[in-house]
């Protein structure tokens, strides 16, 4: 399912037009982003947790050239699926 399908499905469920659904969605995601930037985590029941994690700097070696690179630290948004979702997926989805 791509973004287009996602939005159309969302608008269908909500009875909105696509533009409105898209606008609300982007609005929601931007607020989520704002919170993530501040280090907040988002917990969605029965779905999972979005959390910002810090990856420390590290030395990376290019396997082909042997070149060593210092990779800077960075912040990454991680998603940890809820146990319910995990189980569902583990069993092949659907169900």
């Amino acid at each position, binding site marked *: *399912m*791509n*973004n287009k399908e*996602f939005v159309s*499905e*969302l608008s269908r*469920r*909500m009875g909105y037009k696509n533009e409105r659904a898209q*606008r*609300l*969605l*982007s*609005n*929601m*995601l*931007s*607020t*989520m*982003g704002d*919170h*993530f*930037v501040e*280090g*907040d*985590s*988002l*917990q*969605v*029941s*029965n*779905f*999972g947790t979005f959390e*910002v994690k810090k990856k420390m*700097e590290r*030395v*990376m070696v290019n396997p082909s050239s*042997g*070149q*060593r*690179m*210092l*990779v*800077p*630290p*960075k*912040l*990454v*948004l*991680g*998603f940890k*699926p809820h146990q319910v*979702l*995990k189980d*569902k*997926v*583990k069993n*092949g*989805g*659907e*169900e």
Partner: protein
Amino acid sequence: MAKLTLHDLANVLIENNDLEPDEAEKFVFSVFDIIHEAINKDHLVKVKGLGTFKVIDVNPRESVNVNTGERVLIEGHSKVSFTPDSTMKELINKPFADFETIVLNDGVNFPEEPSETLMELKDEPDEAVTAEPQTVQEIPAPAIEEQTMDAPVETPVEILSEAPVEILSETPVEAPVEIPVEAPVETPVEILSEAPVEIPVETPVKTPLKTPFEAVVETPADILGEPEVETPVEEVVEAPAEDVVETPVEAPAEDVVETPVEAPAEDVVETPVEVPAEDVVETPVETPAEDVVETPVEAPAEDVVEASVEAPVEEQVAEAKENSDETGKTESQEIPNAVIQNIALQEEIPYNEDSNEKVSQPVASSENDLVELVQNEEETTPEATTQSDSFYEEEVYMGKNYNPSKVKPKKTWWRWAIAILFGVFIGFFLGFYLPEITKFIEAVKSGNFNKEDNYNVTVYENADLAAIDSIAAIDSLAAAAADSAARDSAVKVVADSVAQSLQEISGNRKTSEVKPSDKPSEVKPSEKPSDAKPSEKPSDAKSSVKPTETQSSVKPSKEKSSSMLTYLKYEEMDSRVRTGAYYIMGVAKVVKAREGDNVSRVSRRYLGDGMSCYVEVLNGMKGSDVLKEGQEIKIPELVLKRSLKKNKQ
């Protein structure tokens, strides 16, 4: 670090979009419900601005139960992966966005790489050497005559042993003997002579050569170790000769042919041999290799011829070996400058050549005419043969001990080391003596011209500048410069008492010389410096100049120095003048400052932009000094340094 819930999101939506609370909450929930369902159904959901949820398969893997230590097989399954959208990723990583991946310079890598290359080089030469012997063996096989072969065989064996040291084979002994007899003689000889000179070759023959080469090398080496022993050689040759010759020769020949050349054994042998020889020769030795190669070749040829003759063969062979040894020795002797190792390499090469030559000679003998040729060669190279025996043994040992390849690198290394040492010595001496020289010059100057510091300075500078000039040219130039300077100074400065003192001193040149010096003095305080100079320097300006000249060995500049004294003094006063394009040769004119003028403005008015330093120096002022109305400012007469230098030359 607060935990955010969907209710919080819904509240934000309510505020921003005037949604009903229920509606907003429903919207938020539905968003994640749809994602949830889509994950299960499509295994892939892309949400712009958030990211991609994807179901990925995990392969089954073994693990260990931490508590019991049992091995557990974790079955393959699926899990959800989330990859944040690029916009979301950048937004979150904003605090660290400025960091970039840096390539680390690893110093450790550099030493390792060169060493590897060196190793490769070493290996290659060895291989090349081995290759040569192989070719030789091949050649003999076809033509092979046991008797003739005996003599040649020995020599080739030696060669092989030397070069290939590493390669050892038990059976090969016989084979090598056979090999030398026929084909080897012709091609090998050529190869040897060529090879030593060029040396560098490496890989081409490597693999094929190795096997045959090895066998040959081992046994021959032993035999060679006792080069003089005629009987042993014969025995070996006889017994193995036929049987051994056949088998070994064939095998090596095939191998060689495949890799290096093409079809025919003889022809093939020749070409391959040449190639390897060239390679080997190039890297290790240079000039010595060539010389050595030539002589040894001849000697071996002679030996071979003898061997071909028949009865004497063995003895001849021995001689040939000796000769080869001698040649090798001579080569080694020539080379010795570099290093013992290098010598060893060279020796190895010569042996190879010798063996080749020997082979060729026998072949010739078989052809009748060849023997004569060999004799001729012997005549040419008799010297080498006489020397041989002891040398031969030495060479053999050397060959065993040292690999040519190793030696080669060392040679280059030594040369570099010597060059570097030489450079260091030169630098050391320069650094050591320069101060002394300058001190000496200063001492002389101070002794002669203590009173005038400026003069001393000028002398130094003149010495440096004048080093190239001839005395006569300098004198004339100096005179001219002095005259011009004198005129200028005279016309302008005459008013000053300095001019008078100078005139009193008399002598046109003297006056001219004095004048320049006077000018500076005027600029500063008063006439004293000018007076001092004349008095010190007896009557003639030249005489005064001379001392400086003798000191620095820059006589020509002496007279110049008098005229140059002035501008040199100015240069000493200001680095801008020293590095500028002009010399201050005197005072061009004296102007009166206008109201509100400063030095730099005046200089700009008369000389243009960027020339204020000359005015400043001449007047002993700073560019920012404000001038009173009517104050006299001297404008310098400037001469392009370049033009002055041209005149000198």
